[in-house]
């Protein structure tokens, strides 16, 4: 019987080797077929789940296309996200290095926390005292009818760590709104974009900061130019780097305290969480 099992093993080995060679030749054939992009599959063969390989030409086309689409319809968050990914390579490297050089930022890079409804305890945060960071964040989510789960996945960043940095930036965006006291209407978003552009240097933020005001009416444009804009820029330049804060450990901290720690002034104008469709 031992001999029979050994023969079985040999046969299995032979068949597997043959299957392997057909598999290898299939891979070679399909690499011949793929001109410049690799096939996308649900069981991912990119660097991280959801990764799609793109050539520089495709990134350029994506940047132009998503920029136009985002301008035409600012509510297409996926286009803003794609624009950020297609244009942000060098800025992301800079952000990643800044995170590495800071102890708290380095902890974030190693622990990779995620801000999603499944990882944060919204009920617990809602029960925190008034004025605490967690409580104000939950208030922001409720007032503006947003959820942390609506962020698009990162697809076009060609490095696994940089993809996390991009994702972290995206997930921290709502916390920026809370820290700056800005609602999610057009004026609030533009103010946050000015702040983020100064902080991160991402081309997408600069793009949004420059072209976003085009969609504001005269009154809001005036508010932006005279008080909100300069305040956002000033604070963006002097505040501590926002990606280096482990927000998940600071829900109990008072919002004022956190603002002081980060060197952010409170907003000069209190904006109400206006209806979603107004600009």
């Amino acid at each position, binding site marked *: 019987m031992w001999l029979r099992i050994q023969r079985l093993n040999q*046969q299995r080995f032979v068949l597997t080797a043959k299957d392997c060679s057909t598999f290898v030749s299939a891979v070679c054939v399909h690499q011949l077929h793929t001109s410049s*992009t690799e096939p*996308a599959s649900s*069981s991912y063969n990119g660097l991280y789940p959801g990764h799609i390989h793109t050539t520089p030409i495709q990134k350029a086309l994506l940047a132009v296309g*998503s920029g136009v689409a985002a301008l035409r319809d600012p509510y297409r968050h996926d286009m803003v996200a*794609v624009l950020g990914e297609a244009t942000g390579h060098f800025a992301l490297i800079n952000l990643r290095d800044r995170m590495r050089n800071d102890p708290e930022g380095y902890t974030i890079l190693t622990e990779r926390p995620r801000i999603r409804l499944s990882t944060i305890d919204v009920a617990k945060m809602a029960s925190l005292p008034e004025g605490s960071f967690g409580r104000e964040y939950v208030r922001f989510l409720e007032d503006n009818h947003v959820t942390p789960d609506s962020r698009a996945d990162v697809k076009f960043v060609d490095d696994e760590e940089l993809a996390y940095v991009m994702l972290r930036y995206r997930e921290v965006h709502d916390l920026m709104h809370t820290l700056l006291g800005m609602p999610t209407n057009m004026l609030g978003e533009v103010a946050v974009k000015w702040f983020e552009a100064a902080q991160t240097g991402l081309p997408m933020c600069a793009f949004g900061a420059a072209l976003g005001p085009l969609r504001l009416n005269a009154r809001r444009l005036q508010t932006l130019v005279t008080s909100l804009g300069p305040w956002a820029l000033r604070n963006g330049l002097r505040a501590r780097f926002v990606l280096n804060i482990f927000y998940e450990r600071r829900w109990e901290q008072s919002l004022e305290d956190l603002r002081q720690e980060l060197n952010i002034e409170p907003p000069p104008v209190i904006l109400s969480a206006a209806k979603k469709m107004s600009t």
Partner: protein
Amino acid sequence: MAASMRLLVRRAVRLSHRNITLTAAGAAARSGCCRGPSVCRCFSDEAEDRSTHFGFETVSETEKAKRVYKVFENVAQKYDIMNDAMSLGIHRVWKDALLHVMHPQPGAQLLDVAGGTGDIAFRFLEYIRLQEERQKRRAARSSQTPSWQDISNNYSTEDESRESRAVVCDINKEMLKVGKQKADSLGVSAGLSWVVGDAEELPFDDDQFDIYTIAFGIRNVTHIDQALQEALRVLKPGGRFMCLEFSKVNNPILSSIYDAYSFQMIPVIGEVIAGDWKSYQYLVESIRKFPNQEEFKGMIEDAGFYCVKYYNLTGGVVALHSGFKL
């Protein structure tokens, strides 16, 4: 890649099981028992896991059907916009060419398989309507001074001729939904019906239709030969099979431009307009996996069609294949 690894492992395990069973069968045979059923069970498992291509990926046949369904479910809402964007509007020329070659006459019964958003069916009904108007005008011109007898005869014969009918059949309910919405907004309803069905197993009786069309759908079918046999079955004798599909471009310059455009631009357009890169990646890859004009002509002939010919459109980017059931 992980999918094909899993397939390999499964196949290896199954083959080893078969070895064990065969050896056991061998032993049992020696001891005088019959082990037939367990061996047969192994072979039927093999059939279920036959693999095919999904774009450039290798998947099992059941998985391909599911994934194709998912692709079209995702793209249905933006399907028409994407067609215009990707082909720069040229897909309208291809579909018009199909109708011109088809040249349907009033009374024809059309089955448009994988007809989804109804482009072919709408064009068919419009073409028939124009034909009918032309016929009426010709009849009016030729009978300039009819007698009252003739006029009353004309009134009675008008309703007797069979009304043309277009049936749009698609496996994907989302695509049919979009098609129905289009029909409503165009105000087209007479002679049009929408049926959910699988091209490999059509829910129609034999010898039903004069014309069977499948436009840009047959490359998504898992078993093309079965779809062709079904087409033969539901056509009346004398009926025509017509297929519009992406095909091989022979001119090397045009081919390299076409490849570059397909792989560089189309997934980008898919991402920007429809927010779905992967579905359009699948679409351009599936075009490369489809047989070329001559091979497909051979497949149509094998299914039993006669007078099979093809016309190359746009340099071979699209081929229109036609065959008759005699």
